[in-house]
């Protein structure tokens, strides 16, 4: 039944570069606000090994060529744009990150060059800039803000990844980043959840968004500084406690949003904090929770791609099918797949 449902969702013709997503006859806009461009040469050795494990053994001989092309926005056939066109994604956010000790990095200047490429003249992609928490200086905040201020139509916000940057959510030394977001009126997309990536921090204070609640409250727009919208990427995945905290934060604060990437993996830690041997994808639990808690308008689709060729396309299908199975209306699916992200990241400022 699941297979038939998925097959009916996507109109894909080999002769048409841009696929369309249709649900019950309605074509819906899809936005993926979480895509990572980079290069093989920007990924640390431990990260390359982890990524290479995802390649078939016979393909690892070609790893630099495959990874460079998969992570290049403009590479033909398998680059990020080709993958999203294939998957029916209309617009994306490309992310800068300073996670050089885990997944690799992409500096703000390199991101901006990508966004300025002629291939992006149609406005397919906007970007999120990021900040180094290592090699720390208050000047980093000034540099961060300069990108956001200078390019209001192509830089949409800030990307942070505390577990990969080895900083806890409530570390007072780095809270100035939210002042930047407040002054510039941009959202902050934060990695939340337990990461299996080598080198990432595995204690809850680095990945459980409950540690962020005081900051969320401080920037809710009622306490003397302008509001900041917090997008909890991965909905705290991997640890049931963290997932529940993400959902509860969204229920309590209207400046909290949930972002559905990386929920295809099973849960690793249960509500008691014990390791579990689960097999069901986490979205099968999270999507009904979002619906039952009335959080659809605070929830957005994303992939955390490109990961591997065909992943974006597959995840689009899985999440749409998962929402249908959970009883979402077409309006609600449209909200999650594109409208929430459009309102937050593709608005004028």
């Amino acid at each position: 039944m699941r297979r038939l449902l998925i097959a009916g969702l996507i109109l894909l013709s080999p002769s048409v570069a841009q696929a369309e997503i249709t649900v019950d006859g309605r074509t819906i806009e899809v936005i993926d606000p979480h895509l990572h461009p980079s290069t093989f040469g920007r990924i640390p050795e431990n990260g390359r090994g982890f990524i290479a494990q995802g390649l078939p053994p016979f393909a690892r001989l070609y790893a630099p060529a495959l990874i460079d092309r998969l992570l290049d926005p403009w590479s033909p056939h398998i680059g990020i744009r080709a993958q999203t066109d294939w998957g029916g994604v209309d617009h994306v956010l490309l992310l800068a990150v300073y996670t050089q000790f885990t997944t690799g990095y992409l500096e703000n200047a390199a991101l901006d060059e990508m966004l300025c490429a002629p291939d992006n003249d149609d406005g397919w992609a906007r970007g999120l800039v990021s900040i180094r928490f290592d090699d720390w200086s208050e000047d980093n905040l000034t540099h961060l803000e300069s990108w956001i201020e200078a390019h209001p139509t192509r830089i949409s916000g800030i990307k942070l990844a505390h577990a990969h940057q080895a900083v806890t959510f409530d570390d007072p030394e780095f809270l100035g980043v939210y002042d930047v977001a407040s002054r510039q009126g941009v959202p902050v997309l934060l990695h939340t959840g337990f990461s299996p990536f080598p080198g990432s921090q595995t204690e809850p204070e680095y990945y459980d968004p409950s540690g962020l609640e005081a900051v969320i409250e401080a920037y809710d727009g009622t306490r003397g500084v302008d509001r900041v919208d917090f997008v909890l990427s991965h909905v705290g995945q991997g640890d049931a406690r963290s997932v529940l905290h993400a959902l509860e934060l969204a229920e309590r604060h209207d400046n909290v949003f949930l972002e559905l990437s990386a929920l295809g993996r099973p849960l690793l830690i249960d509500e008691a904090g014990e390791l579990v041997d689960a097999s069901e994808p986490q979205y099968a639990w999270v999507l009904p929770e979002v619906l039952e808690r009335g959080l659809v308008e605070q929830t957005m689709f994303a992939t955390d791609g490109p990961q591997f060729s065909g992943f974006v396309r597959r995840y689009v299908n899985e999440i749409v099918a998962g929402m249908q199975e959970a009883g979402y209306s077409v309006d609600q699916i449209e909200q999650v797949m594109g409208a929430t992200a459009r309102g937050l990241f593709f608005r004028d400022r």
Partner: protein
Amino acid sequence: MRALLSLVALGALGCASPEAPAGPQLVPGERLGDVTLDMTYVQVVEVLGEPTGALVDSRIGFARFEGDVEVVFTSPEADALTDDSRIIGIGLGTAGDYAGPALPGATRAEVEAALGPAPDSIESIDYYPHGISVEYDGDTVFRVAVLPPYERRPDVPPMVGVDR
């Protein structure tokens, strides 16, 4: 520094061998014999003939040809190679008549004498940024591949602003 050493090693090799050896060449970052990295599938078939087998999945295709040559393509089709599919790597499993700095059957010492120590490795595979990868079985080369060059950027640049 390692890259510099590699260049020095290559330079030394070039000085010691003023005449290119006869026969088809494996040239890192460029070609294996007459198959070059800028070719399309239809051009490869003109050179090597029809593949003896192919595996294509999610727009990435591995085509095998006579002589233990494997050519990796990206394709606009999910599960088929098209005439305009593009090469991203050329592999070789048997040295045959080829000449080059690293060939199947060579020893690790011979490869490192020619190319220097590899700056990047994953498990049993060494990668050189000027465009060659070498897979070992113990200390003997099992397979090699000609790849597009890549840029090593292990050091994150300092943060800069717009007015850098």
